[in-house]
């Protein structure tokens, strides 16, 4: 059995619960069937197993090096990039009229999780390249698309997203990289970026940077940020590579995890090269001036959901590995057993089962959230009678949760997986410590946990006068009704969900009446925690309902994990909600000099 992601669970969630086959009745996905979905899942599992997993450790131990001029990576990364592109895996989710294969994003993200579980760092290059290509397809001119997208899909170029700067991470309004307009309509870019993943390497012919910069004289803040294509090598009209552009590295960052994805500090227009005999890095404006951040945000929902899925993938594979270990490791005896009796596998100890069950509840719950959000994106992309504004409202409110909840709790799952292995888990002989280090990135990038909390409570809930929350609660209500109709244990779970959802609604109303916005948002992360756990409880109930009337160990496991979540986890939201309801100001009132 593969220790990446359980294929049985993927099949259950995709087909038995979310019924992704029904998407094939929509025009956009009409070329597909269960056969193509399964074909791509099989292919992904094979490629992930053969081209990605084997160098996961090597990429971590032999992290990228920079000699002042060139970045060197282990060669397996390049081979993996080529195998991935050759299998059409970059083009798979794009619509057919954009050179793709029209695969539903839900199925695609399930496939990508297999790569993320096998080797998160190497998969990072593909994810960035695809994000870059998608942004160009949505907003660049046909000529720009023609020049840069096909080589990316073919594995000849990779892409980056160059937003952050040393002094502007969470707050992009303060970036200082500038773009000087040229008489020929191009721009020259000058500035220093920071944290840019995949910012230099020699595994592909070229690198396409998507750079946020300000055109002098534009409006201040986020409304004055534009988006530019800045290739490492200029590309001629016939597609051949020309002069080296003035993009060089000031250095690379040495990270805790995700080490195989080289992380760089690129300088634009530092004078290392003079393309066309002029100063500055040549850049091409994407779309209209000053709309750069809006274009980026357009991609943000999907990017954030995919960070959550990446976190889930690492949590999931850690769970399966600790489960396998627990079945084999003999240690101790049942309480009260005589010392001469044989030792038992640790999985028979209740506390080890607790750690495994918690992991199962977190990772399978997080998977459900990612796939559910993916399905909403698919429905939006293929609108078939639904009201797109309504779907968007639901997707918007779920997105910060889909990014943050898995990033937080699948990291806890990795922590528990280490614990299950005992001393062995703390060594580098097992993958778990690396999964933990790799996964630790996810609450930081693509908007940190704190920023997601502000987004959820500030923009998505209070900013919509509660409409976003009402939309989400309506969905939970429908599930609770189905559960109540099913009767028995399902009905009890449904009632518990309904009670918790009602409490969240009441508390939200109370927060909304606080005198001004600072105290309203002060406890946003407690809000994110509570809303996140409630959403996962809801999705466990959904899985429970999809298993009603079905027998066997797999379904029994789903039922038991639902019980675990409702008995052990869901009640944890109450203290967080109490803090919110009371308008508690403990953190706000804390003074700097009291620390």
């Amino acid at each position, binding site marked *: 059995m593969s220790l990446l992601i359980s294929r049985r669970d993927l099949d259950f969630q995709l087909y038995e619960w979310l019924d992704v086959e029904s998407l094939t009745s929509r025009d956009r996905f009409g*070329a*597909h*069937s269960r*056969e*193509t979905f399964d*074909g*791509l899942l099989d*292919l992904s599992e*094979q*490629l992930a197993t053969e081209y990605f997993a084997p160098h996961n450790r090597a990429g971590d131990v032999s992290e990228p090096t920079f000699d002042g001029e060139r970045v060197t990576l282990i060669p397996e990364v390049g081979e993996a990039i080529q*195998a991935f592109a*050759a*299998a*059409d*895996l970059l*083009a*798979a989710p794009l619509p057919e009229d954009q050179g793709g*294969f029209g*695969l539903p994003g839900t199925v695609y993200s399930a496939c990508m999780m297999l790569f993320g579980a096998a080797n998160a760092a190497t998969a990072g290059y593909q994810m960035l390249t695809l994000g870059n290509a998608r942004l160009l397809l949505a907003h660049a001119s046909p000529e720009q698309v023609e020049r840069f997208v096909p080589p990316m899909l073919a594995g000849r170029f990779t892409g980056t997203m160059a937003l952050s700067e040393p002094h502007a991470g969470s707050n992009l309004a303060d970036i200082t990289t500038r773009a000087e307009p040229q008489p020929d309509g191009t721009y020259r870019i000058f500035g220093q970026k920071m944290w840019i993943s995949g910012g230099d390497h020699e595994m592909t012919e070229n690198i396409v940077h998507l750079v946020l910069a300000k055109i002098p004289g534009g409006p201040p803040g986020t409304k004055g940020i534009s988006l530019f294509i800045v290739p490492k090598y200029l590309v001629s009209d016939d597609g051949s590579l020309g002069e080296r552009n003035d993009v060089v590295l000031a250095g690379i960052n040495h990270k805790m995890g995700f080490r195989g994805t080289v992380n760089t500090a690129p300088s634009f227009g530092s004078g290392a090269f003079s393309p066309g005999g002029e100063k500055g890095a040549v850049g091409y404006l994407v779309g209209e001036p000053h709309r750069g951040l809006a274009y980026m945000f357009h991609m943000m929902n999907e990017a954030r959901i995919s960070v959550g899925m990446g976190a889930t993938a690492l949590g999931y594979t850690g769970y399966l590995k600790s489960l396998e270990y627990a079945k084999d490791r003999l240690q101790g005896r049942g309480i009260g057993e005589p010392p001469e009796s044989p030792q038992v596998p640790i999985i028979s100890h209740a506390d080890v089962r607790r750690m495994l069950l918690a992991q199962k509840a977190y990772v399978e719950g997080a998977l459900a959230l990612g796939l559910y959000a993916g399905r909403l994106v698919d429905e939006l992309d293929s609108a078939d009678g639904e009201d797109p504004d309504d779907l968007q409202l639901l997707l918007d409110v779920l997105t910060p949760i889909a990014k943050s909840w898995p990033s937080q709790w699948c990291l806890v799952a990795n922590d528990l997986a280490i614990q299950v292995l005992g001393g062995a888990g703390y060594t580098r002989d097992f993958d778990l410590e690396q999964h933990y280090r790799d996964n630790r990135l996810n609450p930081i990038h693509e908007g940190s946990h704190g920023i997601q909390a502000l987004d959820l409570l500030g923009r998505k809930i209070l900013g919509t006068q509660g409409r976003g929350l009402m939309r989400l609660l309506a969905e939970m209500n429908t599930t609770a009704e189905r559960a109540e109709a099913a009767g028995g244990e399902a009905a009890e779970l449904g009632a518990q969900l309904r009670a918790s959802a009602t409490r969240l609604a009441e508390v939200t109303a109370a927060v909304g009446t606080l005198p001004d916005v600072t105290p309203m948002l002060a406890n946003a992360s407690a809000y994110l925690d509570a809303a996140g756990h409630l959403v996962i409880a809801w999705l466990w109930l959904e899985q429970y309902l999809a298993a009603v009337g079905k027998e066997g160990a797999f379904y029994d496991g789903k039922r038991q994990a639902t019980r675990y979540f409702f008995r052990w986890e869901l009640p944890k939201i109450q203290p967080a909600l109490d803090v919110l309801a009371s308008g508690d100001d403990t953190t706000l009132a804390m003074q700097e000099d009291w620390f």
Partner: protein
Amino acid sequence: MKIAVCVKQVPDTWAEKKLTDADRTLDRESADGVMNELDEYAVEEALLLTEASGGEVVAVSMGPDKAEETVRKALQMGADSGIHIVDDSLHGSDAIATSLVLSKVLADKGFDLIIFGSESTDARMSVVPAMVAERLGVPQMTFANKVEVAGETLKIQRQTEYGYDEVESSTPAVVSVVEKINEPRYPSFKGIMAAKKKPIETVTVADAGVDAGQVGLAAAWSQVDQFSERPPKAAGVKIEDDGSGGVKIAEYLSEQKFI
């Protein structure tokens, strides 16, 4: 060039194989079915040959309903069409019956080459290619680690224990390949989607012009009367190294007739 590739569905190479209690044949339900690994090399060779000089590749499989997956896999890799020979009467067929049915289906279809993997991981007999060649009355060019076709001349390097023989024949011919010959491709997503539209013809024993009495378990020349489970692995022997560990290991290996 028109090439047939024979592909067989076998239980997953790494899965534990079981016999059924009912009739002591292989339990094909107990493990996932996959394309026999050496047959992937056969498909790859057929694709390489037709990519170089044009032509078509037909994937042929005899097996239960599920074996259609294996024909489909060959189509995903790039074969143009498939033939699936499926019939309840085939259950339990031996190599003699299998070669009879395959040769009937393959005869008179104008194939220049019929390519096989040199053995299957479940039966491991390595005889079906030779039997099919014999029945069709064409040269058998087995254990090839290199294949070249020029006009109507076929040249192979036939792998031997210490190197290879160069062997030449006319076409049509039957070829079986060993794993040194190439590196089988993965299907691409484009291939997976294209395969949906490629035709698979279903053929019964009657369609093949074979009498059902000549095939299946009852007609098999050898049958399993009885079987027992492999005994569980005995505990290994531990040798403490008190300075004479090397000698003790050598003695043990010699006792077991390894050295």
